[in-house]
């Protein structure tokens, strides 16, 4: 490209650059101190950074506190029903693969009622950013145990303490065929959260991100008082999620090759300290919607009619 052309293009782009406010819809109604605010801001930053036209992005969610996010994001949004964000997101991608899709779910939403869709979405590997905002509790329905509620914690449905060990979503994801991206971050690490969502946005395929965040109302002491006493280890790789030096106050860094599935599976089963960063990435896994679009014909109207006529011939008897 000639220097002049490049300069003029940059000028046009500059004129079209969006501001963060362009992605603001109504004022969020989440509780003060809820991590959902931070995820919304991080998403808005990634949209601005990629200069996404607000009308071209679709945010799909299920039901729960975090699933209100599309109400507060000025893109197209679909706030659906409990556990079903991923089928809806799949439908959008299958029919309009030109639209970037972000799916937002909570822990109960994705891992419990939506469990089947979760596992199969990873297998389909649709090209979408999938965020689970995991506060380890059902909050909107007022504190019931979720699959990730810690051992022995008391909730309204487990007043004498939970009965089962919490689910490890990371190892479940790493057990699925076709997994192409897995990362973990936390809302009390805002810079790491931003970098993780950016990495997820740039990935081609289903980028699954588990975001740890405390519920300030029902689980204020979770995650070691919201990260203060929560042991983490940062996964370090030159192509991984950058580790700002300040993060090392929270926990040590550990070399990790996110392209090695066996290593990723090994890290995924560790819960203490919690691995933070990019566990796994394989950009070579084809996206389901692209497989389907490549295989279908794009007949013009005349051809369409001729083919329908030919199909009818197969059933014509006289």
């Amino acid at each position, binding site marked *: 490209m000639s220097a002049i052309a490049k300069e003029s293009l940059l000028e046009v782009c500059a004129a079209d650059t969006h501001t963060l406010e362009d992605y603001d819809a109504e004022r969020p109604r989440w509780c003060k101190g809820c991590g959902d605010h931070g995820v919304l801001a991080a998403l808005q930053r990634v949209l601005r950074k990629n200069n996404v036209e607000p009308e071209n992005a679709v945010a799909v969610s299920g039901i729960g506190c975090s699933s209100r996010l599309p109400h507060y994001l000025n893109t197209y949004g679909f706030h659906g029903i409990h556990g*079903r964000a991923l089928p809806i997101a799949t439908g959008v991608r299958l029919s309009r693969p030109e639209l970037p899709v972000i799916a937002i779910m909570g822990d109960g939403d994705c891992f419990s009622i939506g469990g089947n869709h979760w596992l199969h979405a990873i297998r389909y590997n649709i090209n979408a950013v999938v965020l689970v905002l995991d506060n380890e509790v059902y909050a909107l329905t007022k504190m019931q145990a979720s699959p990730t509620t810690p051992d022995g914690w008391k909730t309204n449905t487990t007043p004498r303490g939970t009965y089962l060990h919490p689910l490890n979503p990371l190892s479940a994801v790493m057990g699925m065929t076709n997994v192409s991206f897995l990362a973990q971050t936390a809302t009390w690490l805002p810079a790491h959260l931003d970098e993780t969502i950016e990495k997820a946005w740039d990935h081609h395929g289903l980028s699954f991100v588990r975001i740890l965040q405390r519920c300030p109302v029902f689980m204020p002491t979770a995650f070691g008082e919201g990260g203060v006493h929560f042991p983490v280890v940062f996964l370090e790789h030159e192509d991984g999620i950058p580790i700002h030096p300040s993060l090392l106050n929270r926990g040590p860094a550990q070399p990790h090759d996110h392209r090695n599935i066996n290593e990723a599976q090994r890290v995924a089963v560790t819960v203490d300290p919690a691995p933070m960063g990019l566990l796994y990435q394989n950009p070579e896994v084809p996206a389901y919607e692209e497989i389907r679009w490549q295989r279908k014909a794009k007949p013009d109207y005349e051809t369409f009619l001729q083919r329908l006529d030919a199909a009818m011939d197969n059933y014509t008897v006289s």
Partner: protein
Amino acid sequence: MTRPRRISLPEHTVEIVSDAGEGAQKAAIAFAQLCAKAGNGLWTVEIIPSEIRPPPHTTGSASGNRIRLAERSQVTNAGNLANVVLAFNEMALLSRLQAESLADDVLVLIDDQWATHENENYRVSYRDVVEQFRARGSTILEIPLQRETLRHVEDAQQGKNMFAVGLLCALYSKDVLVLQEVIRKIFKGKSKQVVDLAVKLAGAGYEYGLANLEQCFEINAVPTDVPKVAMNGNTALALGAIAAGFELCSMYPITPATSASHALSDLFEDFGGFVHQAEDEIAAIGVALGASYAGKTALTITSGPGMALKAEFQGLAVMTETPLVIVDVQRGGPSTGLPTKIEQSDLLHALYGAPGDAPKVVLAPSTIEECYYILSVARKIAEEFRMLVIVLSDANLATGQQLFDRPNVFATPPRSQLDLSPVPTNALPYAWDPTTGLSERLIPGQPGGMGVTTSLNHDRDGKACYDAERNKRGHAMRSRKLAALQQTLQRPRVHGAPEGELLLVGWGSTRGAIEEAVDMARGAGHSVSSVHLQFLSPLPPGLKDIFTKFRRVITVELNYSDDPQAPLITEENRRYGQLAWVLRAATLLDIDCFANVPGRPYMPVEILDEAKRILATMDTKSPAQRLTAVEGVS
């Protein structure tokens, strides 16, 4: 060699049954195509066991087809008691007696190998069943099906069916060369050796028939210039979905709906669409809804149990006013019920299955031909009214084959293009017309239209709200669309005289049988008419007016109702057929029902008998006792 004597007939019904896996279905398909090619009108019904390989030589293993063929090209139903049955063993034969499917004087063609079989149990049961049929007045033709087939192949399992269809070709005086051409087409893709053998066996069966049958039948076709197609209802739905411009069908396997998706899977990609097999029924509708939300109206195809799983998503489609089409190919319920057999038991579920008040459109095709056209209607309504449209087909339409006029595919309109033109930034996602409730939807990608589509209650601006006024408005606007659609519907046509003694009201695949029963009754001087409903929600206009011109109105439905004579059943606690329930509520008239669950289509004679029975009871009552309003309400 003396040729069999020919008997000319206007129509006949023949059944072919074998153990599952012995190929009676394939024989029947070949025979049906042979008749269709000759120009005979026909209607076929599959006889399908619920398992793939049930224990052989049992009534539960019977697999095959019923074929009604006629001189006239228009055959609208599966007919009455069968005139001919060709059975590969006596248990398959017995199963058709148990299904109450055979005439007393049915001509039975049965493989005679069991008479001398080494297994004594088979010998005994063969003798017993054959005697039972003789005692009923049947004619038994014992055919050396196994022995004759073994003259050409080593394993008779792989060829008896072709010998059998050759025999039927002789029995119905059809052209064996046409049959062999049909067989070559059916076996397309198989090795030359297999195809040649099938053709040879059909020829052998035909020659055997000519040499050994004393009499044969001739059902001449009335010539027609209009090109005809023969297909089953699920194939018609698949082709209809393509013609309607759908680009995505999202489904999960379920009997008896799946073959529609098979037919669509075969073709759809060549037409720029695809079938997505989802991980479950819920995801299947979710993907369709997501695609529709994104601007490409999609459909999902299922059956009763799948409808139950899709109920929450139905509510979501209604609440968000996302156009969506669901096809429910009904089967016997509740629960797993009778997976391969017909019932019309999902009407109330379709109308009321979703939680909350969820107004939606419910349509029912009444013929296989209508299965082809109905998805264009469904899609148009779904998009123009932003509504959920449920199409209720059933196992009878799904697997039966009917001859009908070849659709003019060149009249198919071009697929609509996405309109992504910008809208003002304050454009309302639900700019409800206060009279009709109608509004234009905004589609992702349209500049200025950004905003959330939510399952929560919302107002014109699409934003969640919880107050009484805006909740009431949302409900009223979603409901009003049904009234707006109802205003565009035509008053249904009455088959027979517009007034009289008895009116039969049907919906779905029972149409042909009901109208044939009405014609028989009227021919015998009875005052019976019928009306058939294609719209179940909204109901078409003029029903009360039509009903009150008759002394009695009963619905004819293939679903359960309490027998008024059964123990404990009273006027107060009797449960009615589902359409009767709906019509009683809608008209406040005392509408009764002939609603039963035989797991097969009604025969016209059964409906005729019921009509005569009702007319007889009416005669004993005062003539002044007209159809009255339900007591206590005026």
